[in-house]
């Protein structure tokens, strides 16, 4: 370190009595960190580094883990990882901190007769798990035990849980909290493209000249994606469709502050204008789509005047937006929870897809109808959790698929159910009706995040046995459990995660799980063994072994990854996007090989080579539907489930408040640094007009009530919300006491973004 120079104001005596060095100064001395790290704190200087993908959101950033004796001591973003280009959001920077939280679950906990959760040995815990669930199954049928999973565990763990739950333990119903974030995108893609296939790669952010964000606030929700937008050299037109003046809307060139949940009408209105003005790509429509004529007929009545009236926008705003889409040479459409969490979410997502299809904005650089995913492994949950889809994006109803999966797993085909699981809300209803008596919750926090959260404790009282498997015994849900299984978290296990752009990235074991905590993978192994189906999972000995099984299952699917050679290859390539098949494609006739954007089978040079780091789908206009054509899917817009009324005159919008909170804050709240980045307590954004009218002072306490609950929070008076609307961040547990349990009929995704509330000074 450099020695401080003498400054003029210091006297000779002053300098003589100055302690320039010492114990405290030494604490902050930096040393060259090697491994291309630059200066690092000497206390934390690593002896090795390794790369792991982040375990918070679906951006899937590469993090360079600084290791000392194999143990992670610090981290920094990975310079070369193709996703994040050397950057990370605060969650990524703080990814190691939640592992060291004092309230980690370190032993299994069993609720005794006195109602107190007490530490027990694993043998006892697993014994209780097996016996209680088996007894319930004996008494109420095998299907009376269900699980609710997550989007936060690894692909290999999803596959294990799904196979164990359905094939090993005989459960029929399992779902994940991905139902709350990505189900809509999955269903929309499935119906429109023939497979749950987000077509884009992050380079598209940089290659568009028009970007349309619908119900998405990437500045806060996906800061690293916004980083890619800002690296776009084309001075792009950025259009944001959002009722709020979000951080992203402020940075846009056009903001359409529409009436909440009028997005479907707006999108049909845009389609109408584009068609009326002849701004469509007729060649692409003719070659690659089906159903356009009917769609044209359908949107005919969505005239600008009607749409303007129903969306609270001007005709000019709508026209300008449509014209901008027309003028763009490469237009990309991006949506996230503002669309997915709606009463008509699937059709809204498909209305976005329709715009991309009719303007030919798909399959080319900088284009696409692109769903930005939420959780780090939402796509892993969608494809491999064996819930809505049979493992690997297969169909439970399809006998060929069942035979194939049974063959790969070496199990009796009769073990595979013929239909998909109930969705999350249907499982909750099943509990209410007494059909589900045993529930196993893995890495999610239902008692915080479930819509109309007030209902959860009473609902769970109807269960005979509730098991919660989590890193922390302190989550709202774990506190309700009969049995808590202590799980190792991200960084304490190996596996892979799939990010928004279909990239498999490796996570590494860089830290020891505390006490007796076991990785979810090892808990599943233990349960399989104790349940008595260990034989079925004889080969499921390590995450990488399961990865190889998963690979075999994907053979011939759009998500074929048989060409990946193993974790080492994922590590060296900066992750690999699906598809990456080993063999020439086309094993399944129903899947058009052309749908794979970069098809190795057609290009001998690509055979057995390293995959390009950024690949997209549908380059040749062929989709995964039986006829290879994308579908125009549409439906009449429906009114919201709970319109405002004189008693509840405000619309409550919910969403992400900061980049520093995640997943009911169960992990992010453990970091003292992240806690500084958001208000400690719940707040409500209120328009100044409403505040003045109701006599609400800035920073005063207000009461928000809905027919379901009543909460008190701090008023944040800001013009970024419109009059008549209020916004509450979802990470405060209070918020979901108010939300209304409405669901999209196709995706069963809850409509968190709209309910009627009243507001008054507290």
């Amino acid at each position, binding site marked *: *370190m*450099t020695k*401080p120079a003498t400054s*003029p*104001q210091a*006297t000779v005596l*002053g300098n003589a009595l*100055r*302690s*320039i060095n010492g114990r*405290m*100064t030494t*604490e*902050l001395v930096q040393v060259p960190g090697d491994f*291309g*790290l630059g200066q*690092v*704190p000497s206390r*934390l200087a690593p002896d090795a580094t390794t790369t*792991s993908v982040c375990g918070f959101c679906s951006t899937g950033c590469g993090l*360079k883990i600084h290791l000392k004796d194999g143990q992670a001591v610090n981290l*920094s973003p990975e310079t070369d990882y193709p996703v994040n280009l*050397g*950057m990370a959001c*605060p969650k990524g*920077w*703080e990814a190691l901190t939640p592992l060291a939280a004092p309230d980690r679950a370190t032993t299994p906990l069993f609720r005794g*007769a006195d109602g107190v959760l007490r530490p027990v040995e*694993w*043998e006892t815990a*697993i*014994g209780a798990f097996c016996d*209680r669930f088996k007894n319930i199954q004996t008494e109420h049928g095998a299907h009376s035990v269900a699980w609710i999973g997550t989007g936060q565990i690894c692909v290999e763990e999803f596959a294990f849980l799904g196979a164990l739950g359905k094939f090993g333990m*005989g459960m029929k119903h399992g779902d994940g909290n991905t139902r709350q974030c990505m189900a809509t995108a999955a269903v929309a893609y499935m119906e429109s493209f023939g497979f749950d296939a987000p077509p884009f790669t992050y380079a598209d952010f940089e290659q568009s000249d028009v970007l349309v964000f619908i119900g998405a606030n990437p500045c806060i929700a996906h800061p690293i994606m*916004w*980083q890619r937008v800002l690296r776009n050299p084309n001075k792009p037109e950025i259009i944001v469709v959002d009722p709020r003046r979000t951080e992203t809307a*402020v940075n846009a*060139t056009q*903001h359409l502050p529409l009436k909440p949940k009028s997005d479907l009408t707006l999108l049909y209105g845009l389609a109408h204008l584009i068609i009326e003005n002849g701004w469509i790509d007729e060649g692409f429509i003719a070659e690659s789509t089906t159903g356009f004529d009917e769609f044209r007929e359908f949107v005919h009545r969505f005239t*600008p*005047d009607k749409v303007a009236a129903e969306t609270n926008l001007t005709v000019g*705003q709508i026209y300008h937006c449509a014209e901008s889409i027309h003028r763009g040479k490469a237009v990309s459409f991006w949506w996230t929870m503002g669309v997915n969490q709606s009463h008509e979410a699937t059709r809204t997502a498909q209305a976005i897809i329709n715009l991309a299809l009719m303007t030919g904005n798909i399959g080319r650089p900088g284009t696409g109808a692109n769903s930005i995913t939420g959780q780090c492994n939402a796509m892993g949950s969608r494809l491999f959790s064996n819930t809505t889809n049979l493992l690997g994006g297969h169909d439970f109803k399809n006998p060929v698929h069942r035979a194939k999966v049974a063959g790969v797993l070496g199990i009796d085909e009769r073990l595979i159910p013929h239909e998909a699981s109930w969705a999350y809300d249907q499982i909750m209803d099943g509990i209410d009706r007494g059909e589900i008596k045993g529930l196993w919750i893995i890495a999610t926090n239902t008692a915080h995040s479930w819509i109309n959260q007030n209902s959860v404790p009473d609902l769970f009282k109807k269960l005979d*046995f509730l098991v919660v498997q989590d890193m922390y015994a302190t989550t709202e849900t774990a506190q309700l459990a*009969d049995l808590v299984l202590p799980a*190792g978290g991200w960084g304490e296990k190996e596996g892979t995660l799939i990010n928004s752009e279909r990239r498999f990235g490796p996570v590494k074991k*860089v830290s020891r*799980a505390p006490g007796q905590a076991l*990785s979810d993978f090892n808990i599943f192994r233990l349960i399989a063994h104790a349940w*008595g*189906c*260990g*034989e079925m999972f004889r080969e499921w000995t390590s995450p990488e072994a399961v990865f190889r099984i998963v690979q075999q299952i994907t053979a011939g699917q759009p998500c074929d990854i048989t060409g990946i050679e193993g974790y080492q290859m994922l590590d060296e390539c900066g992750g690999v996007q699906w598809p990456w098949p080993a063999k020439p494609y086309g094993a399944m006739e129903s899947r058009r090989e052309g749908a794979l954007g970069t098809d190795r089978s057609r290009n001998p040079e690509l055979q057995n080579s390293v995959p390009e780091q950024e690949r997209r789908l549908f380059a040749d206009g062929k989709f995964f539907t039986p006829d290879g054509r994308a579908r125009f899917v549409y439906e009449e817009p429906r009114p919201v489930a709970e319109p405002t009324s004189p008693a509840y005159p405000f619309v409550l919008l919910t969403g992400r408040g900061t980049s*520093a909170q995640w997943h009911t804050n169960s992990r992010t709240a453990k970091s003292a*640094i992240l806690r*500084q980045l958001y*208000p400690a307590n719940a*707040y409500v954004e209120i328009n100044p007009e409403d505040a003045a009218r109701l006599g609400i002072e800035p*920073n005063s306490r207000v009461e928000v009530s809905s027919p379901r609950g009543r909460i008190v929070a*701090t008023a*944040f008076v800001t013009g970024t919300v419109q009059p008549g609307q209020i916004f509450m961040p979802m990470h405060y547990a209070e918020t979901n006491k108010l939300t209304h349990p409405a669901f999209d009929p196709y995706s069963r995704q809850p409509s968190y973004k709209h309910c009627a509330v009243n507001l008054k000074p507290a």
Partner: protein
Amino acid sequence: MPARLLSDDELEEPTVTPSDPRASARSGSPRSHFSSDIPVDPIATFVDVLLAEQRDLTAAERFAFKHRSGEIPSQARYYRNLIPLSKPGVGEQYAFEVNLDQCSGCKACVAACHSLNGLEDEESWRTVGLLIGEAPEKLGADIGFRDPASGTRHQPSAPIQRTVTTACHHCADPGCLNGCPVLAYEKDPLTGIVRHLDDQCIGCQYCVMKCPYEVPKFSKRLGIVRKCDMCSQRLAVGEAPACVQSCPNEAIRIAVVDVAEALAVGRPSLPGKFSKTVPGKGARPPNPFLPASPRPGITVPTTRYFSTVLTTSTLRAADEAALHPADPHLPLVAMLPLSQLSVGLMVGLALSGSLSALKTGVTVSFIAMSIALGVATLHLGQPLRAWKAFLGWRKSWFSREVIAFGQYHGFLGLFTAVLWLKPELLTAAIGHPASGIAALLGLGSVFCSVMLYADTQREFWSFGRSFGKFFGSVTLLGLAGSGTLLDSSACWGATIAVFLAKLATDLEILRFLKVPGFPPLKKSALLITRRFSRIAFARVAFGICGGVLLPGALLVARHPFGRATGLVAVLLLLAGEMCERFLFFAAVAPTKMPGGISA
């Protein structure tokens, strides 16, 4: 659901029907682990295997990257253009430059500062705030669009928000450095970086009060403050500071700035340094540094904020209405009134010319001052280093206060010793001048106390308010103390008058309750009336008992317990002054950078 312990029946494995296909997969697997006839529990063994596996860290062996171990850090490709190519020249220094329009509000800079500098769990030298307001709508006519239906469109202005990232501003005239009593700050003559010498710091936290931007942060573990040094160790080897490295959007960079230019912007006319702002009277000129932040004239920050919206918008801090109590500094709450009692007593003795009361009076004064100084050291994080506190005397009112009180206390000690050990020396010729000298030294010390707070530029601690409170305490406690010692009606009469006058000046802050908006003095008034209403009530109650009722009783009727009553009055007044001083510290609204949403 009511949980039950397992009964024996439940411990039996459920029967599996032969048609159950799962049975086929079970062949060879152990039967229930609960069966007592199996001697070795295979589950326990398997648990041990899994736990051992769980403890085995594999990433280093299986995957460790041999990242390039060259001299140039790999991240340099991203930040190479964000740091200056050359060192600052004469009259120049390094400065942060922030483009608010590039910032998306992700706050990675805060986390990266913490991680890359290896700071404590909750410590980061960067913070973020939020500005909200309105700016002219940029859409519409300026890009040639016309609404076919209604002509031009759009409201004239639209809501905007800007996240503000902030660290040390490495000021041209650093308040922290000027205030530090032990010269624990350096402004590097080459780079202009304001660095803190951690091993020199005594943990007095005066720099925290002196910095208009709340930059130095006190660490309880270390008992010192620490602050941003612009990652000077990184800059020295050509690397970018942590925040610059970590911003995904290149919103933060290091620039070389002209110090004279910074001074010209910050202090267009130097007398502005002590200019007062009267709330509600006249529009202040826009802050050239950043809206909703302290006047740059105080310390001349060198950070430069850029945004297209700063000049065209009305921006306010997201937390402008939030009330945050400040650190009450309890040792100082005790120290200040005790020292003022001591001085007041000496002044009373000097003015009264009484020799009879001198021995008791000086002794009490000395004891009060000794307690004051003893308590004051509790305020220091590193009391063993406190002896250095005189070093900053050239600029620091803290050093001056320490020196002044040191002299005063020393003199009082000597005086007391003489009074007790050589009472024969106590003649009018010696006693009167000695009392006078002690009183003058004491008054000088209290003046240093006043200046110590006035120099922070906090409006609630303005010279007038601090002077009124501190010398008000000197007068009030001095009169009551003298009244008790001398048994003087005149003193008690004056006590009532002075108390009422002081109470009136203390309550002066309440007039700001009616001021619109949330200027600092209104926040102080709100804190006093809302958060600290009980202490405010106690302050008045103690004061009225000790400053009106008891003195009044003593005036109306002399009684045998007059001195004891007087003593009670003094103690009540002292308690009242301590409550007042608690509010002085806890209800101050420091100048600060714009904060985030507060809830």
